[in-house]
């Protein structure tokens, strides 16, 4: 920042003139970091200091309710235990599957809603408010309600019955639709065998690598809550695309579909990236929603690292194992967030 040139001033403030301007500016330059330091030091202790301590716990012998911070032999043993556990392998699989499906549903759904609202039909404002409304609720509320909607005895399955879908299916000779949803322990599209043929060392993985059925309702609930966010991001982005661009395209005879596919969606690429990073990191951290909606699920079908950490720290009191799992979560989130922050900083 350029140093301000002290100009002769007509200010009535006599006291200010008594202090030489340059020195006063110097004092104020020190004042800024000085005033920031209490809250920034507190924040840095609570973020970086605490993360450092958690790393230490993950390397320690503190695996019971007796606090023991002596280093474990070998040092990384808790991480070895962690990745050797079938449950944690399942958790990582679930996080991956959840993130992919959730991002497709919420970012894709948000984009679709934004395109529909971009047409400015009657009532656009109301529609927009309704689609974003779930974002204002807590994950707990969402989980509690969707848990009943995906209860096999009622909710969606009841709709299949009452809307006559099952009656139609029976007419064409198919069985009635009655999925177990969050109670279904099945894992479909398993790829363990195929993966082992290509990469033999993956035979060490005990978890069934596939799509757990019970996880699908949870991704739907999460997308219900957060697709409005993607929509709001896209709408804000679409508002910045000038009218000339659209008019030029329609003069060239582009259809609405071509306009969006070849011009508007490519122009919104930065928004797509930001939205995917923000929603992606939410899904890597997901905890409350699953905790309230399905918990661990049948055969850990809906378990995720967030729930694993909570269980190990507050249930089993295996603090080193829980800490190790939380550090794995942090590394996953950092892989997404650190490049994003680094790019943002360059633009500061």
């Amino acid at each position, binding site marked *: 920042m350029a140093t301000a040139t002290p100009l002769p001033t007509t200010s009535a403030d006599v006291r200010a003139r008594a202090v030489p301007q340059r020195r006063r500016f110097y004092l104020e330059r020190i004042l800024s970091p000085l005033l920031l330091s209490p809250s920034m030091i507190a924040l840095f202790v609570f973020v970086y200091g605490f993360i450092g301590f958690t790393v230490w716990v993950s390397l320690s012998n503190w695996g019971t309710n007796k606090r023991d911070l002596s280093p474990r032999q070998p040092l990384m043993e808790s991480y070895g235990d962690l990745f050797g556990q079938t449950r944690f392998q399942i958790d990582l699989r679930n996080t991956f599957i959840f993130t992919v499906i959730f991002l497709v549903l919420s970012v894709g759904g948000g984009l679709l809603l934004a395109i529909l609202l971009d047409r400015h039909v009657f009532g656009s404002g109301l529609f927009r408010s309704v689609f974003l409304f779930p974002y204002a609720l807590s994950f707990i509320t969402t989980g509690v309600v969707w848990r009943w909607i995906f209860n096999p005895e009622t909710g969606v399955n009841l709709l299949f019955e009452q809307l006559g879908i099952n009656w139609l299916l029976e007419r064409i000779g198919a069985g009635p639709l009655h999925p177990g949803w969050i109670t279904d322990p099945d894992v479909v599209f398993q790829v363990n065998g195929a993966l082992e043929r290509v990469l033999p060392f993956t035979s060490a993985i005990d978890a069934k690598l596939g799509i757990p059925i019970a996880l699908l309702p949870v991704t739907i609930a999460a997308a219900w809550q957060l697709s409005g966010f993607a929509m709001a991001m896209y709408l804000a982005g679409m508002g910045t695309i000038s009218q000339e661009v659209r008019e030029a395209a329609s003069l060239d005879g582009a259809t609405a579909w071509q306009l969006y596919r070849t011009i508007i969606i490519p122009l919104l690429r930065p928004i797509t990236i930001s939205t995917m990073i923000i929603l992606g*990191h939410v899904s890597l951290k997901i905890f409350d929603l699953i905790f309230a909606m399905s918990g661990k699920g049948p055969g850990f079908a809906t378990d995720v690292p967030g729930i694993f950490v909570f269980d190990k720290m507050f249930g089993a009191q295996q603090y080193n194992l829980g800490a190790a799992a939380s550090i794995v979560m942090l590394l996953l989130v950092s892989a997404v967030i650190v490049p994003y922050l680094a790019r943002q900083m360059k633009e500061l």
Partner: protein
Amino acid sequence: MATTTLDRPLPVSAPRRKRRGSFGHYVVVALLVMAMLFYLAPVYVMLANGLKDKSYMTLADMWKLPRDLSGGGFAFAWNALKPNLWNSVSMAVPATLFSSLFGAVNGYLFSKWKFRGSDIVFTLALFGMFIPYQAILIPMIETLQRFNLYGTRGGLILVHVIYGLPITTLIFRNYFANVPSELVEAARIDGASLFGIFWRIMLPLSLPAFVVVGIFQFTNIWNDFLFGVTVVFSPSEQPITVALNNLSGTSSVDWTVVMAGAVVAALPTALIYVLLGRFFIRGLLAGSMKG
């Protein structure tokens, strides 16, 4: 004053209405109505079933309207959750106030009084709003225990204020960055101090930013579950999200009561959204994009 991100209404391109009555127009409206049914279905489930009386309510009645307006599970849910509702209010209001105030001062300093390395400090601070809080729980609880704040509302407020600093600082920083630097320079030449500029120029301009940050933070803090369940162990002291989850996990409680409870827990943030949605959206975007 200069237009800033928070002042400007949501950017909306010039109207390009599809001609009413055209086929495409009806398709768009039909798709929007279908989407709206999906988004409102859970809200309907909450409200309608909360209002049903459990004595003649079975799972097969989920999608039916309540038979009368006797109040259903609401009376029970209200009585069960009232103390926790108050816990949440008395936690979220002060935590929101403090984190907004700190955010305002920090945002002002980071935008108008940059010093060597201030951008790095700011970026490192921002990292704090993305971390999974599981990775700080053990030392956080031990620290709160050391200061006799573990299990108290004060401890909960403290952690919400500290972990709220990144987002509030970010929004205020981006807001103040749009106040012309000439204004600040001119005031300094006229002899205004760092405090004077904040008090007489920045604060009077920052009401919209306070509204946005306040709503955004209140919603975040109200909806938190992880801190609520780990910092406060006594059920009578826990915030409403934790109480709702406990209610939902109690097998002796009827599910119509749980639905009514979900409505009670959601009501404050839902009302804020309905009444002040405009500001809510701005906070959402300001927190996720560079100003």
